[in-house]
């Protein structure tokens, strides 16, 4: 039997607008599902970045407030939840769903209905979670029913993502083209596999804990399992690193692939690069799964007083991913000695990998107890670095693969400019938070701002809070502007952009072996593969025969 649905993708969307909408809603074409994820995630990113900017400006002066103080915790929750699970992770998943089956040489994604169902479940949960917070629910919400709704909606969204990730992993493991063994996967597909397996193991933990918090919230006598403390203590691990760093793993895969493409070289040593990418994930999954109990004790921090037994877990959790990320970049970067021409995917890919490396370094720093960064906005800065890496990666990846979805290229110069602007914005948003963290500006996922408390006391500290928070707010505004302009550029190029060839980037992997845009079932014929760079092999052979 087969679970590949080769006919479902050919949904007829010609005719009325209603038929077109119905075509999108009922589609099981992985390219459409991926684009749905990307589109909604970009919208969520815009909304979350606006909230982030508002919160940053709110923190400029702790003595005055222009936001409702009672809703600050909810806004914080929406900002963290929105940036991570409504924007960043869905962006990564969307790009992966749209591209990975093409890179595999497959006609479709495995379990296409599961992938589509996952998207709609995620979207339903996402909308419900936002509605719940807007209706005075969510963390620290005043309406108990909507607090419960938020918890359930969040769990539902995560289950949706879980379903789509299962579909992705199964595709990579079972639908590869003939001859494509695991070592012949593209670095991006490999990194998606690592990230997806980690997320498939980690997300259910979060769902289970949300379920406990939901049940406990119905019985306020169980204080240790309900309320904000429970959310921060038991669910908060899903919103902080190292769990969040899991979602940056595809950034390194894209980086390795794009450098190989623009330098027209093979990734060498290929096996080592794949292993180093895997290292980022393998060491993180242990923490992701065990976070509720372990991360708060032995794995939590390293200080001069710690015994060797505490140092070893710290090194395992923080040094291994750092080593993996560093080695990936160190192994791939020398190829740039050939000085390839700058383009949005290339520049974005390199910048995103460097930001992801920064995020892992910052995560490791934060857990050094003697640095006294715990409980400061340093943690928020690290979170924003993670988001920044994913946003820059997403803009670069969308520009790179847009021809396979629309048949048209995204204009090179504006795309490059906007990718760099998004990079600058994310850095401006994150770096001041890191500096303010060293200056002891208090932070926290859910600051304990209670109704009736005068002033935004948790934001107040002795350093130049106005400067850092202004810079961070401007950074968020830059992100909003760049993403908004990028979306406009995408929409415009999809209808009026220059027609792209089948292989506009002179690529090495299988997605460039089909037409632009790719047909409903991806390939006219199934290709046999004899190396990790089948198109480079073909081009090299053609060059030799021409000579």
């Amino acid at each position, binding site marked *: *039997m*087969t*679970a*590949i649905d080769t006919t479902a993708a050919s949904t007829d969307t010609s005719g009325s607008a209603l038929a077109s909408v119905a075509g999108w809603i009922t589609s099981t074409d992985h390219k459409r599902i991926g684009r749905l994820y990307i589109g909604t995630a970009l919208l969520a990113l815009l909304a979350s970045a606006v909230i982030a900017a508002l919160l940053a400006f709110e923190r400029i002066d702790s003595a005055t407030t222009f936001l409702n103080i009672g809703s600050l915790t909810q806004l914080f929750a929406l900002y963290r939840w929105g940036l991570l699970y409504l924007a960043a992770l869905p962006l990564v998943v969307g790009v992966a769903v749209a591209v990975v089956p093409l890179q595999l040489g497959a*006609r479709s994604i*495995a*379990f296409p209905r*599961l992938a589509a169902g996952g998207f709609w479940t995620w979207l339903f949960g996402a909308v419900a979670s936002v509605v719940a917070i807007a209706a005075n629910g969510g963390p620290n919400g005043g309406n108990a029913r909507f607090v419960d709704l938020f918890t359930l909606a969040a769990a539902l969204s995560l289950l949706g993502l*879980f379903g789509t990730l*299962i579909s992705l*992993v*199964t595709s990579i*493991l*079972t*639908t*590869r*083209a*003939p*001859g494509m063994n695991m070592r012949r996967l593209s670095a991006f597909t490999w990194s998606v596999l690592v990230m997806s*397996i980690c997320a*498939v*193991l*980690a*997300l*259910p*933990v*979060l*769902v*289970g*804990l949300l*379920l*406990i918090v939901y*049940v*406990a919230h*119905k*019985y306020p*006598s*169980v204080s*240790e*399992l309900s309320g904000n403390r429970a959310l921060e203590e*038991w669910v908060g691990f899903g919103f902080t690193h190292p769990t969040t760093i899991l979602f940056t793993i595809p950034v390194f895969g894209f980086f390795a692939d794009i450098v190989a493409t623009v330098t027209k070289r093979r990734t060498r040593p290929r096996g080592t690069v794949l292993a180093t990418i895997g290292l980022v994930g393998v060491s993180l999954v242990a923490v992701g*799964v*065990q976070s*509720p*109990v372990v991360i708060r004790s032995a794995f939590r921090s390293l200080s001069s007083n710690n015994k060797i037994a505490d140092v070893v877990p710290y090194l395992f959790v923080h040094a291994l991913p750092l080593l993996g990320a560093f080695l990936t970049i160190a192994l791939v970067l020398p190829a740039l000695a050939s000085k390839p021409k700058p383009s949005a995917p290339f520049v974005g890919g390199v910048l995103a990998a460097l930001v992801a490396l920064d995020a892992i370094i910052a995560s490791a720093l934060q857990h050094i107890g003697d640095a006294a960064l715990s409980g400061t906005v340093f943690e928020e800065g690290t979170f924003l670095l993670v988001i920044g890496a994913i946003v820059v990666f997403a803009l670069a990846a969308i520009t790179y693969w847009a021809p396979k979805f629309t048949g048209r290229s995204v204009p090179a110069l504006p795309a490059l400019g906007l990718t760099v602007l998004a990079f600058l914005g994310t850095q401006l948003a994150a770096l001041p938070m890191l500096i303010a963290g060293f200056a002891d500006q208090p932070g926290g996922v859910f600051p304990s701002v209670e109704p009736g408390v005068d002033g935004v006391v948790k934001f107040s500290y002795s350093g130049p809070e106005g400067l850092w928070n202004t810079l961070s707010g401007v950074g968020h505004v830059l992100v909003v502007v760049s993403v908004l302009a990028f979306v406009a550029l995408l929409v415009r190029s999809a209808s009026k952009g220059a027609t792209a060839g*089948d*292989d506009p980037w002179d690529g090495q992997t299988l997605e*460039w*072996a*089909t*037409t632009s845009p790719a047909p409903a079932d991806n390939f*006219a*014929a*199934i*290709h*046999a*593969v004899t190396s990790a760079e*089948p*198109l480079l092999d*073909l081009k090299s052979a053609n060059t030799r025969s021409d000579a």
Partner: protein
Amino acid sequence: MHALPTAPAPEPRRQILVGTALASAGAATLVGGMLALYVKFRHEALASADGRWIPKGITVPLVPANVLLIALLPVCLFSQWAVYSAKRNDKPHASLALGLVALLGVAFINAQAFIWATMKLPVLEGTYSVLFYCLTGVMTALAILGVVFSVTTAFRYLGGRTADREVVAAHALYWYAFSFVFAMLWFVVYVTK
């Protein structure tokens, strides 16, 4: 378009089995995370001043819990029997085995309901109650999913899709994983309490 060498479309590579394995791994971490929290709160409660974890007057019935665990042994055996029979195109035995798995699954749910009824543990009783009901509730939900899986597999098989041996194998894998997860829960919640 590049003229890469073509090949016949490859045979599907155990998609249902791989998907089930991933879902089962997810189910294991779902329960595992909850169990971790249970162990942590139990440790804290026992180290506290009153040293009480299970509410006063509540007895955790071990015998029905043991029966639950023991019942999973034939579930695994019958699941494998279904795989064995399906491989030999033995439709009557495969159908019988799948039916027995579904029946035992229903019995499992019934026994869990019996434990709830026997314990008479109010949810309002505190942390232990919330964690107990969440853990056993999730386990029961997974058992219901398993029964649905068994019934669906049996109907597909009876309906003539006897070549779908992979589904029967995936069904067995699900129940193996379920048994493993329940064994963890049984040890933590019912034995060490």
